[in-house]
C-alpha cells in the first residue's frame, strides 16, 4: 500500500468504514435526531451538533490547504454559532467536507506528503494526520454524548 493509500484508508475507515478504535464518525450520527443533536447532556461540554459543525469546518479547511489554498486558522469558524444550523444540513456539510478531503489526499503523490502545506511549515502528512486525529478525538466525545442522552 502506498503512503497516500494508507492515509486514505485511515480517513475512510475513521469516517464511514470499519474503524477499529470504535464506531466510525458517520455511523455514530445515524439515528441521532435534531433535538438530540442540539441538546447538552453533559454539563459544560459541546452538543453533538456543535461537534459535527466543528469537525466539518476543519475537514473542509484542511482539504482546501491540501489543494494548495492558504487557509489561516483564524479564518476557520472554529466553534460556530449553531443556533440557525439544522442538524441534517450540518451532517450533509460534514459529508461534503470529508469527501473533498479524501479527494484531495487521493490526488497527492507520495513525494508531496513531505512537502509543506501552503502558508505553513507543516508537511502535508502532518496536516492530514492531524485532521484525522482531530476527527477521531471528537468521535469519541460524540459516542459519550450519545450514551448520556
Amino acid at each position, binding site marked *: *500500500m502506498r*503512503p497516500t493509500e*494508507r*492515509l486514505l484508508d*485511515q480517513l475512510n475507515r*475513521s469516517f464511514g468504514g470499519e*474503524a*477499529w*478504535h*470504535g464506531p466510525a464518525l458517520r455511523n455514530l450520527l445515524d439515528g441521532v435526531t435534531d433535538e438530540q443533536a442540539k441538546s447538552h*447532556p*453533559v*454539563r*459544560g*461540554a459541546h452538543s453533538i451538533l456543535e461537534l459535527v459543525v466543528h469537525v466539518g469546518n476543519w475537514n473542509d479547511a484542511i482539504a482546501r490547504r491540501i489543494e494548495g489554498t492558504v487557509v489561516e*486558522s483564524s479564518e476557520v469558524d472554529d466553534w460556530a454559532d449553531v443556533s440557525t444550523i439544522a442538524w441534517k444540513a450540518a451532517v450533509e456539510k460534514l459529508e461534503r467536507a470529508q469527501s473533498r478531503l479524501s479527494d484531495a489526499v487521493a490526488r497527492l503523490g507520495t513525494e508531496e506528503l513531505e512537502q509543506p502545506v501552503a502558508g505553513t511549515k*507543516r508537511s502535508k*502528512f*502532518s496536516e492530514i*494526520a*492531524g485532521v*484525522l*486525529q*482531530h476527527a*477521531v*478525538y*471528537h*468521535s*469519541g*466525545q460524540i*459516542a*459519550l*454524548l450519545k*450514551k*448520556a*442522552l
Partner: protein
Amino acid sequence: VNADDFRTLYAYNTWANRRVLEACRALDPSTFSRPTSGSFGSIKETLSHIAWAEWLWLERWQHRSPKKASLPEASDLPSIERIMGETARGQQSFVAQLSDERLSERISYLNIKDERWEYTLGQMLQHVVNHSTYHRGQVVTLLRQAGANAVSTDYLLYFDEQ
C-alpha cells in the same frame, strides 16, 4: 505514512497522554473513580482502558499474546501513570528501530478471547494511536463535566509546542 511518520505520531501520543494524566492529578480520587454520564464509565476506567490497550498492543508487536490475567494492575492514578510511562518508553524504543519495510510485515496474535487475528504492523501502529485519541476525547469531556480544567491535546498544538 512511513516509519518516520510513526515516530512523530507516537511522540504526539505520549505528549497527549501526559497532558491528560497531568489534568487528572488535580482531581480528588472519588471524582476520578465515579461513574459518569449515564452508562458511561468513570475517568479511571476510560484511562485504564487506554493504558491496557497500549500495553497489550506493544506486546503483540513483539509477537506476544498476553491474556487478561497478565494485564498490569490499574486501580488508581499512580498505577495507570506507571503503565503508561513504561509503555511509552517501550513504544519509543520500538518505533526508534522501525524501518519502512517492517510496516508491511504481517503479525499474527491471539486476542484475549483466544481468537487468532492478523494485521500488518503499520495497521496496528495506526490503530493504537487512533484508539487512544478516541478515548482521550472522552476523558477530556468527563474532566470538563467534573469541573476540572480543560486540557487540549490537539495534534496541531503539539507541533506548535515543539
